[in-house]
Structures are given as C-alpha cells and as structure tokens.
C-alpha cells in the first residue's frame, strides 16, 4: 500500500495545542494557503503560547508576537516598513488575534489599521472566550454560554450578551473584503484566504474555531461541532465586499440549535435547569434571525 504523502506545513507539527484544537487547525490551513512569502504577527493568546515556547518555534515563516492588543498595529508597521524600504514585493502581511484580542482589547488598533488602508489580512480566530487564561468571556462569547467569568448559576443563565458583530464593524470601515469562515469547512477557509490575499488593502477574516477545552466538547468532534454551528444558523458564513454581502454559505439541512448546544458542556445548564427550554428558544431566535438577515436558506 502506498504511504499517504504528508505535506510539509508552514505551521510545523509538534506544537503544544490541545487535541482537537480548532485554532491550530485553522492557523495551519491559513498559513499553507498564504504560502511562505508572508510575514505574520500574532497577539498574545493560545496560538502564540502553544507554538513558540522558547527555544522552539513551530513557525516556518517570519513571525512576531508583541502584545495582546497590537497585532494589527505591528502588522501595519511591518507593511509600511516594507514599502518604505522598497521591499513591498517580498511578502504579504497577515495579522492574527483571538476573539478577545480582536473584539475587545485590540479593537482600537484594529480600527486604525482598517481606516488607514494597510495592505494586511487580519485573521480573528474566534473560539468565543479567553481560552488561554482559562475560559473567561469575551465580546464574542455567545449568548448564555457559561464561562468562568459569566458562569451559569442560581440566578444566571451564563453570558448575558450575544456576539459583537465584528464582521459588520470591520465592513463599516469600508474595507474591500470581509469574510467569515470555519474549520468545519476547510476548503472554503482556504479559498477565502487566497482570495483575501489577492485583494489590496485591509481584509478581515473571522474564523469560527471550536475549543474542546473551553466549550467542553469531545476533542474528536471539533469538525462536527463547527459544522453544526453553521447548519443551525448560529454561525453565518459569508463574504462582504466593499460593504455588501456578496456570498453566503447556504444551510443544507437546517438543524435546531439544541443539536449544537447539546454537544458542549458550556451550554449544559440550559438542559438541566428548569426554564431552560425558554432560553433555548431565545437562542433559536438568534439563529433564525441570522438565517433571515444573511439569507442562509
């Protein structure tokens, strides 16, 4: 039997990500789609921690981590430096951050990068909480997920707010390309990275990345969890060009949100506590609103 060919990846194996880590998978696919002529920045977070514990690094491309909130500004500095030194043809620039680095602490720097029109692709790995510090809620934590700082309790159903609409916030900056993607559909992710990098100017790509540790799901189910999120309508997958939605991933067979929620212990309280059914209905409403808003069916 012929041995399967293992492709050499730009994010090398052997790093310290958890089994089933959606972010590690997304990063590998994105980097291989981008290719070696890329300079990469990273915010503080799981990705930086699991891939660069000195004296090892999993990165086979020029890579820099500075702080939690400035991945986009550092990338902007790289982009202008390349231009100023006549090296603009040497490399594309990708900035990376988690959901907290992107939607919370780093949103100021990110807005500045968008506004100034830097030729940078910003990737937000959205695993819906501060996983590196121990599963605290972020601006992208979904409604009624239980995290360590938005726990469910006697008088609480967990996180009180729904996900901050980061793709729309990005698009409002009139940047040429905004897209959402998921590790559930890796070909789509790959295609969007290549498309984004073919467009000049600031680009925003938000990738839904299940976190077996933080979402408390079976690490073997990462892809299933990611796909189910899309098939319920909770995570709409779309592209926006020049501020307008230009493509959406249609839901093949709509699933009720329970199918997604029950895979993850962060939503367990919704099935255990009296009154949970009404709360699940509220989450179903979020999914239905998405389906209508983005035309997912």
């Amino acid at each position, binding site marked *: 039997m012929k041995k399967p060919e293992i492709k050499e990846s730009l994010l090398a194996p052997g790093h310290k990500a958890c089994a089933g880590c959606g972010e590690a998978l997304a990063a590998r696919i994105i980097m291989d789609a981008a290719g*070696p*002529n*890329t*300079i990469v*920045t990273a915010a503080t977070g799981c990705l*930086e*921690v699991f891939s*660069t*514990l*000195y*004296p090892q*690094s999993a*990165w*086979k*491309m*020029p*890579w*820099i*981590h*500075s*702080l939690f*909130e*400035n991945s986009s*500004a*550092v*990338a*902007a*500095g*790289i982009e*202008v*430096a*390349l*231009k*100023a*030194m006549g*090296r603009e043809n*040497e*490399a594309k620039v990708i900035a990376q951050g988690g959901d907290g680095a992107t939607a919370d602490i780093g949103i*100021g*720097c990110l*807005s*500045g990068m968008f*506004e*100034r029109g830097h030729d940078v692709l910003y990737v937000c790995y959205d695993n819906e909480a501060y996983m590196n510090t121990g599963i605290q809620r972020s601006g992208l934590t979904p409604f009624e997920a239980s995290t360590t700082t938005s726990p469910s309790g006697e008088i609480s159903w967990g996180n009180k707010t729904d996900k901050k609409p980061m793709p729309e916030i990005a698009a409002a900056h009139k940047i040429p390309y905004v897209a959402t993607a998921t590790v559930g559909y890796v070909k789509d992710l790959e295609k969007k990275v290549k498309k984004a990098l073919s467009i000049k100017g600031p680009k925003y790509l938000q990738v839904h990345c299940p976190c077996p540790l933080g979402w408390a799901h079976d690490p073997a189910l990462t892809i299933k969890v990611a796909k189910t999120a899309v098939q319920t309508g909770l995570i709409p997958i779309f592209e926006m060009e020049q501020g307008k939605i230009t493509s959406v991933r249609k839901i093949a067979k709509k699933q009720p949100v329970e199918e997604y929620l029950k895979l993850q212990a962060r939503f367990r309280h919704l099935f255990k506590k009296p009154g949970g059914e009404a709360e699940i209905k509220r989450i179903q409403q979020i999914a239905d609103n998405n389906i209508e808003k983005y035309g997912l069916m």
Partner: protein
Amino acid sequence: MKKLIEGSMAVAEAIKVCRPHVISAYPITPQTHVVENLSQFVADGELKSEFVNVESEFGAASVVLGSSATGARAFSCTTSQGLLLMLEVLYNIAGLRLPVVMVVANRAVSAPINIWCDHQDAVTVRDAGWIQLWAEDNQEAYDMCLQAYRIGETPEVSLPVMVNFDGFILTHAFEPVDVIEQKDADQFLPPYKPAQYLTTKNPLTFGLLVDPDYYAETRYRLQVAMEDSKKIIEDVADEFKSKFGRYSGGLVEKYRLDDADTAVISMGSVSGTIKEVVDSLRDEGKKIGLLRIRVLRPFPKEAIFAALKDVKNIIIMEKNISLGLEGMLATEIKACFYAKEKQPKVSGYIVGLGGRDIPQDSIRNTILKAEKELAQAEFVDLKHQLIGGVL
C-alpha cells in the same frame, strides 16, 4: 549652518537628516509642532518617510515596533499621558532589542491635567529598558537625535533611545541652532543594518514565550547592554565632536565643579538658570558647581561618583517625585555613595512641577537654605495659602 528656529523645528530637522523610514505619532501638547513639521517635510517631498497617523500613542509605539522589527529606521514623538499610554509597548520595544528613537517633550502627568513642563513622564518610565538622554537646550536636543540613532543601532547596544527635551521651555523656544548638512549626517549615521529582522529570506520567530528556565537571562542581557552602552554613548559623543566640532554628549556635564565643595544636580533646561546662579555665587567666593545628568538610563553612577567624590554638600533640584518617598534623583544619587568612605550631605528639592517658574532667586535661596538643613522631598516655592496652612 546656524538657523534661528523653534525647538520643535530643530528636532524635526534633526530627524529629517536621520532619514527614518517610518514615523508614527499621535498628537499631544506640547509635542505637536515636532510631528507637524515632520509631516510637512513628508508632504513636501523633503523627507521620504512613511508617516503613519494613528488612533493613539499605543498604536504609534506599536507601529514603530513593527517597522523596526522589519529592519526599518523608525521614529516617534510624544509626551506625558501619551508616554504613559505607550508604557506597555516601551517595555516590549526594549525587550525585543529594537533601536527605535523617540523624542519626548517632557510634561507633567494628570491628575490634575497640566500641559506644562516637568519630568514626571519620562522619569516614570525609566525602568522600561530605554536609554534616556536629557537635553539642556535645543542645540543639544538636535545633536542628541543624531547620536541617539548611532547609539541605539550599535550592534552590542541594540536598545531604543529616548531624547528628552523640556515641553514649551524648549519645544516652543526660538534659539539659534547649528544644523547639519544631509551629506555630513549620512557620514555620521550610516543606514541601519540589523543582524536579524523580519524577512522571508530568513524566517525567524520574534517575541516568543519564554519560561522560567530562560527569562532571567534575557533580562540579564538587557542589563549588560545598558551598562555597556555607557562607553558607546561617550564614544559616539567623541566622534560627533571630531566631525562637527561640538561636544554634545557624554554621561554628565560638569560645570565649575573642579574645586567645589557644594554641587547642585539637575536635568534639562533649568540647568541653564542654575549655571547663572552658580556663576554669581562663585563671584561671591562660594565654591559651588553644577552636575547635570545628561543620561538617566543607563544611570552613570561611576561618572557621578567620580565627579562628586570630594564634594561635601549635594543639592538636588528635580522636576519629579516618586510619591511616598522623594525625588527620583535624590534616591539614585545617594545610592552612588553607598559603602563609600566619604558620605556627602544630600538634600533633595522638588522644583518646577507642572511648569511652575523657577526664578534665579528661588534657586539661590534654596542653595543657601541647604547649607543649614538636610532636606528630603522639600517642595520649593510652595504656596502655603493653597494647602490649608498646615505647613
């Protein structure tokens, strides 16, 4: 060539001949004229730089960090609240060993908000790993900018350098400044060629996670680079003098200290006023001189001790306070004499906070008073009617 120009223009002209690839800054009084002048140079094509207008000082520091890591010469300028907002990035730039140069137009810190000069801003960030140069006048600020890049970009130093000059007192003052021709500046300051930078030709990882097995060594190497930079700072000043005829460098300035038994210590523009008081006291027969701190980090403890070892009285006049203790210089100067045989009397006075004028009479009276007391964190020219009469 001498030009009668504003201090902010002097600094902008100095940075122009340093040819930074990238300038990023956020406006804040009294730094604005510096970056306005630089952006005009760029707009007129006189300076070929990428000028990046950002959303905050935090963003400015992050942009120049990214540019410097890519191998570019980078510049920023700020003051006061802006410098404090940058603090997290300041440590990061130093830790990454990036020779960014930043001019700070020194200003007081809120609250209450105050836009005028003192030294609290830069003094507060002195532990961040930046070399700190402190100018007395605009010529010195001009010269320090060129020297700053030479010092920071020296491979064994590889540290960021901050050039401090007093907000309003210098930034907005017109003085004749001898400016350097581009071709002469190019000879003194060759292009920046870092050994390592972000490039696809040699893909390296910068800013890794370092655990307890390795972290202390990175800080040790920063400390060694800081200590070693003292010699580089002096060498660069010597080379500058041989090229341009001005000794505009060194770690400390000694003014009429040779036979002095009393020494005043200061930083920045107030030193000019103190020198005049020293002159008049000398005329009256007092053996007094001034030691001006030109480099706050690395702290030139050897040079300070050597200059003051025979002095009996030290009078520190400084524009900052470490609240709950005393002025920063007072503590650090005393440390220079620890475990030495002869211990001078060291009195610490806080002057000129928030831009309060420091007239010659106040300096003179403080010096005369210091002969009779041992002062710690004594505020000069306090308005007692404003503090409830307790004092």
